[in-house]
């Protein structure tokens, strides 16, 4: 997929160096203005190291920006962002339902409705993943996963 690139005048190839330069600018500004660069007696202050690195990053960003126009723009298939959306929904649902129920619902919905897997494949995959999560992380390692507002309201 990556190979099929079409030339574009302005895109992510230019946005990355610009964002990096902006980040470097913020680090330099805060480093010099708030955290300090050098003290005659104490030597380097908390802003010293980030300012030095951010200055270097600013220079690299400029080089990367000018070189970026020679590169072709990548493609962004819409389906890829469904994974991002699903994790965003898991994070949101966790506050309401808890993490384990949220990932359980995600697994069932993704496999059965999005991928249109058979019930057998859905349940086997669901069983294996939940066994790893509950068996290793909850029972063995004792990770206290968040239970969510609804659970807290019912069982408090």
């Amino acid at each position, binding site marked *: 997929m*990556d190979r099929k690139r079409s030339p574009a005048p302005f895109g*992510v*190839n230019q946005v*990355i*160096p610009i964002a*990096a330069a902006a*980040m*470097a600018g913020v*680090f330099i500004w*805060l480093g010099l203005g708030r*955290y300090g660069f050098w003290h005659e007696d*104490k*030597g*380097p*202050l*908390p*802003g010293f*190291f*980030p300012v030095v*690195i*951010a200055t*270097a*990053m600013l220079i*690299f*960003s400029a*080089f*990367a920006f000018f*070189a970026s126009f020679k*590169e072709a723009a*990548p493609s962004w*298939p819409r*389906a*890829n962002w*469904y*994974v*991002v959306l*699903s*994790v*965003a929904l898991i*994070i949101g649902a*966790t*506050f309401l339902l808890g*993490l384990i129920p949220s*990932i359980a619902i*995600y*697994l069932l919905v*993704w496999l059965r409705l999005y*991928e249109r*897997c058979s019930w057998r494949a859905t349940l086997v*995959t669901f069983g294996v*993943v939940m066994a*790893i*999560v509950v068996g*290793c*992380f909850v029972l063995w*390692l004792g*990770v*206290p*996963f*968040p239970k969510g507002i609804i659970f807290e309201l019912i069982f408090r």
Partner: protein
Amino acid sequence: MENIQLLMHGFAVLFTVQNVGAMALGAVLGLIVGAMPGIGSLAGVALLLPLTYRFNPTTAIIMLGALYYANMYGGAFSAILLNIPGDSPAVMTALDGYPMATVRKRPGQALLTSNISSFIGGLVGMVILTFTGPALANFGLRFGPVEMTALLLVAMTSIGWLVGENPTKGLLLTAFGILLACVGMDTLSGSPRYEFGNIYLLGGISFTPFVIGIVGFAQVIKLMEERSLQVKAAADKLTLRGSMVTRHDLKRLLPPALRSGVLGTFVGVLPGAGATTASFMGYAAQKSFKSEEPLGSGAIEGIAACESANNAAAAGAFAPLLALGIPGSGTGAVLLGGLMMWGLNPGPLLFVNEPDFAWGLIASLFLANLVTLLIAWGVIPFLIKILSVPTRLLIPCITVICVVGSYSTSNSMYGVVVMFLSGIVGYVLQKARYSTAPVLLAFVLAPMLESNMRKSFIISRGSLGIFFEKPISLTLLVVLSAIVLFTAARPLLVRAGLLKSKGAGQ
């Protein structure tokens, strides 16, 4: 000769049913813990420390030593099969391990290469530790802030320059990784820095969720493009025989594994450097040698270099721990705590006062290395079945592991948010043809670099001259200059016909 006799005495101490059983249990648990993203050797050793209370000190430390060692093997499993490093030293393994397993369709060989290299690295490290343990520990002590600054600059710059097709992009991401690591507390003064008033950022960006995101979750997003492809798992590859490496493969993996074994042992001895630095340096060093396939495209040499280095570093880290009582890493600190809990005082006198313990532990590491290799080899056919799972089923499974693994590192949703955001950043960077390895290396090493660099300037009262006055740092700076100059001059040399282009093989 005396050391060999003492080692034999250690083996005599080791061979009791309880000790061998504890060692095998440690090896199995280490493999499991290492393969689980988000847990890592530090958490693994800490979690299992209470299990050892019932044992005598020798048995207990044998178990923990085996666990620590096996952890280095286990971290590579998920890195090779899922592109999710189980632990930070396995980050570099994913660079070649995952393409070898998926693009080159040699998952069994990738896993076995990693196992054999880990074994060789561990063996080299243990041999060096046996014969030069105390001397090695003293060598490590010669690395003060100035020398460590120079060493870390070499490690960071070489990866920034050498990984990926474009050095500017590599350096840009190295700087990006360093700045991200600056968020949170200032390493020396402890004052808040770049936290933007956010209580979570005050503690910095957690490394494990960051790695899971930028490597693992980014990979899951990318996998969506391949979800409709049919998986063709060759039946012969699902057996032990199908996983065997050829004689030619062995020839390819031996030189980098031996080289990285020696390099990794010395890096492991350095205070605070650890297996992750060793793994990065092993990989960077391999770039200077010939590889049959370009590194990053599934080259055996790439897997061998970093896997051997990280296991050798684990062995090397025992030198300062046992001979001087100085832990080289967080895991080493937990092991040191265990030793003290059992009433043992590591230091030069440990080998004199507690020879059974000290040499029993060293002997157990030799045996644990072999036992872990055999166990890890035995589970390959089961592990590579993961790759025969259709991508469309694998995507939700890995997504859940990313979420759960990143939560479990901090017991907070903050870890999941870090994983989520870094995953998106990693995906965008990969699509724009940026290699994310320099970000990870810089992120891990930045606190150490900053702390050592600032200490150096405080010692020298701001003078750069201190870096050129000490022989070790001067040598390292010459190496650094050579790397930078060679990379800058490389296009000219290629144009003049004195060198082959990178694409033409290395």
